[in-house]
């Protein structure tokens, strides 16, 4: 006991890398094996019943926590199929067990021996044996059309023509007008996919996978099969190309927030062209599950931060997806959308800092907040329920909301006269944490998504060090070498 370990924050990066890898790897066709349902039952009891239930009805003890709900195998409806009818192939079921379903609670069970996974396929099918009487019918996809600006344009036209935007939103951020009415086969509310985040696509984000989903739909959900509704069969591929153009393939999470040094004035407008030139850092947000009410299924899973500073002020540009713009209306269980950045009140060089969840009784944190309807404010918190506004606050900001996305600029002076508010200085690793609330999803107070501590660093003003040092080193090396040659020749 008592070992010291290095915990590099690179683990986050590695995880993101793994996700990216699993996305880019095309699913290799696996030869089907006949599974033994009786042997599968033993594995099922140990590994699957917790969510999918002993009877396969999706009512395991964890089910009430999870969103989306675990699949009810007794209905025999499978979301992800490569077939033209409602019957999946054994390989389809095997692949989902092996790779899991991104964006849901279904993990990749590649850790189980292959034999066990085939046995599970046989056992799971037995919950709705009558649905498999008709064999799977092979889906014939039209010939692949490579992505091009024309193809993407055609895909966008089709996207509107077949009304994808009604659920998925104009820019694919799951903010369509019908989103609130969507129910699955079991009458549970269901959210449309955010098409700008392909790493959360349930059936994978490969080209063929997306085209297949478009062609044969997602069973048990409101997503229909579109192969017969598009004008020409190859429109499936134009749509695929359009969808893949909506967002980056992987989130590439940041481990450090770099604040760029600038000399000019910083614009207030979140839509200013200025901000597109600042490199963003993507930060993953997780549910707050420490104090009640716990938030196991946070609505906001990512915030993108751009930050700059000049000699007077520091500015944060935050971008995140939220399908609804909502203000406080407690009668309707709606709350104001909000976001906050958290810092220690004093930046010290030691490892100690306040408790990551908005501080505690003994150590407070400083919060830089934006709330829909109220704007930017500064506060001190001694825990998530003990937030007090800061007197003489100087922070300002501006927000815009378009097509399911918030963009907010928050500015404040670089220095500070108040002991409860930090002063930022270049080249110092400054702890920072984030919290976000989607009021439209009922998030308020302690029901939030958050991060633990990250680092933020104000980059030193551009120096020419990197252009001066290398020639000096090269010349010194040459001088030493010439000296050696001379001495040797003497």
């Amino acid at each position, binding site marked *: *006991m*008592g*070992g*010291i*370990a*290095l*915990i*590099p*924050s690179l*683990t*986050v990066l590695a*995880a993101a890398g793994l996700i990216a890898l699993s996305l880019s790897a095309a699913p290799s066709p696996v030869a089907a094996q006949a599974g033994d349902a009786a042997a599968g039952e033993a594995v099922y009891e140990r*590994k699957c019943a*917790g*969510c999918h239930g002993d009877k396969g009805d999706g009512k*395991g*003890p*964890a089910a009430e*926590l999870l969103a989306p709900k675990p699949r009810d195998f007794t209905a025999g409806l499978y979301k992800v199929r490569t077939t033209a009818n409602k019957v999946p192939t054994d390989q389809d079921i095997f692949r989902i067990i092996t790779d899991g379903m991104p964006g849901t*609670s279904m*993990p990749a*069970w590649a*850790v189980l021996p292959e034999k066990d996974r085939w046995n599970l396929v046989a056992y799971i099918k037995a919950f709705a044996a009558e649905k498999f009487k008709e064999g799977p019918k092979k889906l014939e996809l039209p010939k692949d059309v490579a992505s091009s600006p024309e193809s993407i344009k055609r895909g966008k036209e089709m996207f509107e023509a077949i009304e994808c935007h009604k659920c998925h939103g104009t820019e694919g951020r799951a903010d369509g007008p019908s989103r609130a009415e969507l129910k699955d086969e079991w009458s549970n509310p269901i959210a449309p996919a955010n098409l700008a985040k392909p790493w959360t696509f349930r059936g994978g984000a490969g080209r063929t996978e997306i085209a297949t989903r478009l062609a044969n739909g997602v069973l048990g959900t409101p997503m229909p099969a579109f192969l017969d509704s598009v004008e020409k069969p190859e429109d499936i591929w134009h749509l695929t190309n359009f969808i893949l153009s909506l967002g980056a393939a992987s989130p590439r*999470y940041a*481990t*450090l927030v*770099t604040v760029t040094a600038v000399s000019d004035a910083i614009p207030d407008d979140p839509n200013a062209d200025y901000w597109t030139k600042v490199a963003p850092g993507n930060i*993953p*947000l*997780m*549910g707050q*599950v420490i104090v009640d009410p716990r938030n196991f299924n946070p609505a906001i899973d990512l915030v993108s931060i751009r930050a700059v500073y000049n000699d007077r002020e520091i500015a944060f540009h935050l971008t995140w997806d939220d399908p609804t713009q909502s203000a406080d209306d407690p009668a309707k269980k709606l709350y104001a959308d909000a976001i906050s950045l958290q810092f220690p009140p004093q930046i010290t060089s030691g*490892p*100690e*800092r306040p*408790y*990551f*969840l908005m501080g505690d009784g003994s*150590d407070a944190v400083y919060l830089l907040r934006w709330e829909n309807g109220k704007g930017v404010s500064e506060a001190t918190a001694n825990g998530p329920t003990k937030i007090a506004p800061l007197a003489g606050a100087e922070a300002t900001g501006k927000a815009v909301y378009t097509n399911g996305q918030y963009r907010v600029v928050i500015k404040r002076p670089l220095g500070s006269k108040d002991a409860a508010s930090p002063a930022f200085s270049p080249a110092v*690793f400054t702890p920072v944490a984030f919290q976000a609330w989607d009021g439209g999803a009922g998030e308020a107070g302690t029901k939030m998504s958050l*991060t*633990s*501590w*990250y*680092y933020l660093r104000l980059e030193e003003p551009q120096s020419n*060090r*990197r252009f001066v*040092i*290398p020639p*000096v*080193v*090269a*010349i010194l*090396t*040459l001088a030493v*070498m010439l000296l*050696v*040659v001379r001495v*040797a*020749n003497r």
Partner: protein
Amino acid sequence: MSFLRSRFVQAVLVLVIAFVVLRFGIQPPAPWSVLTLYMSIVLLAVLVFVSSDSDSWREFVRPIRATLISPDKRRARLGLLIALPLLFGYYAYTQAAAKPQAPPELRAVHPAPPASMPFRGKEIQITGLDNPLRKDQATFKKHVAAGAEIYIRNCLYCHGDNLDGKGHFAYGFNPPPANFQDPGTIAMLQEAYLFWRIAKGGPGLPKESTPWNSVMPAWEDRLTEGQIWQVIVYLYDATGQQPRRWEESH
């Protein structure tokens, strides 16, 4: 293969092979600082070897001297005079232009537990404490099943379905959730240690373990003493690990 008999070529070969083995043979890869240390030791050993007697040393130095003096090696000499300064200059550039990385978090992963701790108004002695649920074999299975349910309702989102620390939230937090399948976690700890960690969570850690970073809740607010013991027997049962036992006192 006569050039293999040259002392100089031998020395270079040993260095190259040592580098390849150390760089690619160790999984997970060792950090550069460690690699540099190992390579300096290898270099030292090689120098000791080639200078073991004066003949060997002369043979080792001969090609180097030749390159520096010999008129028919002018081209090689010129090449080196250009290549090496450029190489060093490039290295200096990569160092000067490098983007800073987030500093590593140093923390004690398994700090020493207290001898006793308060738990819901009473004092629990940790030293020498055993899991009371292991005494009665008849009810053991029932406790494992109850522990499984507690686990999936509370622990799943971080520690994962497969108890490998890869739950929904795992990649968002630093330090990451414990991987119970790893022999370096619960297999080397007493059950009383787990009881302390589960009951007091992140906020109950000593300072050397950075309590302000840990997102582990203090479960004493949510679970009873019996429930914590149940989830502990589930952790060992589901992973097939055995808890460490207290040393026999004489």
